[in-house]
């Protein structure tokens, strides 16, 4: 792992992975998200999305504020299935 800079700890995505994909022409945050699985792990992007946005801004010459955030979805943190189905009997 030496020398690798991890962007997403849920799915082991590196800075190099992100930059290579941007270089191949994928510059939409929603597309980057799905191809790299950033923001789709247990932390739901709290770590990786801001880093990827800054890389994307730097590589494309855009201001970070101009890049829309990917859509956030429930649950914002992992929930055990039995907590949800247990509620059915209440």
């Amino acid at each position, binding site marked *: 792992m030496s020398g690798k800079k991890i962007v997403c700890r849920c*799915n082991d995505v590196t800075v190099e992975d992100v930059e290579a994909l941007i270089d191949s022409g994928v510059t*939409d945050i929603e597309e980057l998200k799905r*191809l790299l699985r950033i923001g789709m792990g247990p932390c739901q992007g709290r770590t990786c999305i801001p880093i990827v946005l800054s890389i994307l801004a730097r590589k494309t010459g855009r201001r970070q504020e101009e890049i829309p955030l990917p859509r956030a979805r*429930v649950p914002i943190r*992992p929930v055990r*299935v039995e907590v949800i*189905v247990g509620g*059915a009997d209440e």
Partner: protein
Amino acid sequence: MSKIAVIGGGIIGVATAYELAKLGEDVILFEKNYFGSGSTFRCATGIRAQFTDEANIRLMKHSVERWEGLEEELGSDIVFRQTGYLFLATSEEEVEAFKANIRLQNKFGVPTRLIDMDEAREIVPILNTEPFLAGAWNPKDGKANPFKTLFAYLFRARELGVDARGHTEVIGFERAGDAITAVKFRSNGKVESVRVDAVLNAANAWAPLINEMAGLSRGLVPITAYKHQLVKTEPLEPGQVEPLVCPPSWNDAYIIQDGEDGGIICGAGIEHKARSLEDYEPTYDFLRGVLEYAVRIAPPLRYAHVVRQWAGFYAKTPDSNPAIGKLLENFYIAAGFSGHGFMMAPAVAQAMAELISKGRSRVPLDWEWYDPYRFERGELRSSAFQIG
């Protein structure tokens, strides 16, 4: 070489653009949002030939054969795995129906067979066998990664010269008689137009709007968007639920382990007519409903964590079969896939590209069955078996 416009950057549009470029056509592809943003990136990943009618069985048999060679053809890992589909019967009547379906599938070379619950448990170690009498098992069915598949097609299409434009919205056509002569589109606020020899409407849930722009009635191909949701758990050890497992009588509920990260994707036929074509909000009733089914199918899932939930559209026609064919002299449609677009894409894209480019196709696609004018004539096909 003809100039062909493809509208819709989902799997059907992108794969057809690729197939057209392979045939030497000059293709321009329009996606109004990001690629895959409609139904493709929200699908449950499943690929199956276990349908209950000849047209869909034959089409999907061909499609699975194309899937088998797709990684090599596109030169990219798309995580295609033939991990099977296992349908589970809960009554003797259903077992008999399964046997009839299996006979039909076997007739066309699909190797489905009836299995007992001991064998089912070997295939799915965490299966609750108690409620089920038998399973319909086809080991050639499978799954693939929709994100990687779409981009594998897109990258190859671009290499072959396809002008693929994301965030570019088609806003109208020029029409002369029964032919479309130009496509008007908008990107970054700028309106442009391109002369074309043919157009494919591959916009799925949005296809009626494109038809209307071409001067056709919105109801000619009556596609309605139904919100279909999925829930995914944290990664589990591979091998727990590799096939798609579905007892159809439990509201078409199903579970399938993601081929890449091992999370369990849970779906069910708890559907809502979408309020609009932007109605992607997941709902709590779905979350609870689908998980109740999931733990009845595989009780250990009770102890897993839910990580994600999302919604997409089943772009449904009245008989759950897509509309595939010609609408005007040079205006074609492949839309209304009712949840089956991803699995059908390799076959439909090849068929559609050959039809547009050569006027006929080698693909065993029953054009009469999928005829887009059938709704206007009041002819419905037997409803396509609709799961994953």
